[in-house]
């Protein structure tokens, strides 16, 4: 009996009833003896039943099943001798058949009791006092109940609903027709046993309950709401939006894989994400503008792989006039994204062009115009048309790049610096000592210049080869100029040294049998 107390740590109805039964005086000496015998036999059966349970592949952890089976055995001991229904037997039935923690399903406690009452005595009539018969009868439920956690929760939920339906409909029938009710009540009892493991497991092993993802989804939603409110309330300046975002960079660093958890708008794009970044900026811009979630535009944006960087500001142009101030920010953010993204081998020439806009403004405007006209129409023609229609200052899309260059220089810096936060954090980590604010700013400036130069070089290299797209050859050239690749050290050597195995397989072509090379050169 002490085992039962230990297994039920929480004061559930089950434990309370158990205690009542154990401590309360029984009416007849016969019952007492039987109760005592039942208790003794239950104690004796504990190891054997537990062994049986383990034999039927229920784990020892599932005390509920063991307890239940033992309880049922004990109940049979008792109920076999008693045929009248006393409060004691009622309570016992409740204990035996009720779920361990029936807090969430209170209705199931009462209903199956009459069904089982009908079932058990009928069974006992057929086979009296024989443990052997009882055990195989309860083995299937235990096995089934044990096998239940293995299948998915969906099945459990389905069975629960089925059970509830049966409970609603079948139990009145089962009471009237005990013979027919054997199957249905057995199934209902089985369903009951199916239903119960849900709760005890979740109660007993809260670590397995998958709550954190739910919390995260809620956080993001609330965050978007807050940001929307903030943006709607205040003017869309980069600084005002930075404050709620300032708390986010840590999240963005950690939650690398969730695109919608990124800080929003063009003000602070994270650096370590390439393509998913424009999608949240685009979607959140739209949210800000339209006032309602344009999540459909988000996935729509995701379909345009190459035009992502340009599509984001193009989408922002669809916004009404008051947000036109935000548009340069977004474009500049897109610029910053472009400059940062373009250092990757898969960067397209559009990134180079966008990074070029602020820099070579003085030197070769026509050259840039020609280049920018080229990517913008080819990537997002419909938003381009909307651009032309909505922008009052710039009649031609050719002028469009100049506007962000001249007007948005300061928000661009903010977006750059916010985007470089990631690298600054890395720097401070590797420095292993506290850093002053001034030092952070200097590091930011240096990184900024470095990345600008890098992307400039890449763009120039591509142009030198008569191309408009940056290709791996350009990067190899850059690395050669940086001194990383020498005559002794080739690119493949560096790949082997620094990259994990999966990337190596992708980057270094391996020759297989049959004249096949992977990846194809």
């Amino acid at each position, binding site marked *: 009996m002490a085992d039962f107390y230990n297994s039920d740590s929480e004061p559930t109805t089950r434990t309370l009833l158990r205690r009542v039964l154990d401590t309360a005086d029984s009416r007849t000496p016969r019952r007492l003896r039987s109760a005592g015998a039942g208790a003794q036999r239950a104690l004796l059966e504990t190891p054997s039943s537990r062994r049986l349970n383990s034999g039927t592949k229920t784990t020892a952890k599932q005390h509920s099943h063991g307890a239940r089976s033992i309880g049922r055995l004990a109940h049979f001991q008792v109920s076999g001798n008693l045929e009248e229904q006393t409060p004691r037997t009622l309570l016992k039935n409740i204990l035996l058949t009720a779920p361990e923690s029936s807090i969430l399903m209170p209705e199931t406690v009462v209903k199956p009791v009459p069904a089982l009452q009908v079932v058990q005595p009928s069974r006992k009539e057929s086979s009296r006092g024989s443990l052997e018969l009882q055990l195989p009868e309860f083995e299937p439920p235990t096995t089934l109940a044990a096998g239940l956690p293995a299948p998915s929760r969906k099945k459990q939920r389905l069975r629960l609903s089925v059970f509830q339906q049966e409970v609603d409909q079948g139990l009145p029938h089962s009471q009237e027709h005990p013979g027919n009710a054997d199957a249905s009540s057995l199934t209902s009892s089985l369903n009951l046993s199916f239903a119960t493991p849900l709760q005890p497991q979740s109660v007993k092993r809260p670590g397995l309950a998958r709550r954190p993802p739910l919390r995260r989804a809620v956080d993001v939603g609330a965050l978007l709401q807050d940001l929307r409110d903030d943006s709607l309330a205040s003017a869309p300046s980069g600084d005002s939006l930075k404050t709620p975002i300032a708390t986010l960079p840590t999240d963005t660093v950690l939650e690398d894989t969730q695109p919608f958890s990124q800080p929003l708008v063009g003000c602070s794009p994270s650096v370590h994400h390439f393509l998913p970044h424009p999608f949240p900026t685009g979607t959140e811009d739209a949210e800000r503008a339209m006032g309602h979630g344009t999540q459909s535009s988000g996935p729509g944006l995701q379909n345009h792989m190459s035009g992502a960087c340009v599509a984001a500001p193009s989408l922002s142009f669809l916004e009404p006039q008051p947000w036109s101030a935000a548009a340069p920010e977004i474009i500049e953010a897109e610029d910053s994204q472009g400059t940062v993204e373009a250092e990757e081998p898969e960067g397209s020439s559009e990134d180079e062009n966008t990074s070029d806009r602020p820099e070579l403004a003085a030197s070769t405007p026509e050259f840039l115009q020609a280049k920018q006209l080229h990517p913008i129409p080819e990537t997002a023609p419909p938003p381009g048309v909307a651009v032309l229609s909505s922008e009052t200052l710039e009649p031609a899309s050719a002028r469009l790049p100049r506007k962000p260059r001249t007007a948005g220089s300061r928000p661009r810096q903010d977006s750059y610096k916010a985007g470089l936060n990631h690298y600054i954090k890395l720097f401070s980590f590797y420095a292993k000592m506290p850093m002053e604010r001034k030092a952070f700013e200097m590091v930011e400036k240096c990184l900024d210049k470095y990345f600008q130069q890098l992307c400039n070089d890449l763009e*120039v*290299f591509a142009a*030198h*080869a*008569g191309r408009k797209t940056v290709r791996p*050859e*350009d990067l190899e*050239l850059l690395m*050669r*100029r940086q001194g990383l690749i020498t005559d002794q050290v080739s690119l493949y050597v560096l790949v082997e040294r620094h990259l994990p195995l999966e990337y190596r397989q992708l980057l270094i072509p391996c020759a297989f049998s049959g004249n096949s090379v992977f990846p194809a050169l």
Partner: protein
Amino acid sequence: MFVEGKEALNPAQKRLKAAVHYTVGRLCEEVALDKEMQFSKQTIAAISELTFRQCENFAKDLEMFARHAKRSTINTEDVKLLARRSNSLLKYITEKSDEIAQCNLERKARKKKKSEDGNKSSRETAEAEAVDSED
């Protein structure tokens, strides 16, 4: 440091390095006269070593650029790419290259007129060599 580099080279390179050193010395003398400030020997040696190594780097880069553009000859484009870092130098070089291109065009026009009269091929090659040497 000033001496090691010379010893690692073969005789032709040593002579080249000596020539560079001599030229740098002459230039430094002119600057010293101009600014009325003397140059020490170590300074001149350092400058000449620097110039030599930088020329090596330039040559390697130029070759890389030409190969990157899938050419086997180094072009003025390669040189411009090399000089893009410093704006003033880039401007200077672009001006010079434009001048040279202009000269080339004029000469070609003149050549074509002259070649109608007499031996075109020999004169063209002579002019081309002259132009190339000027480059």
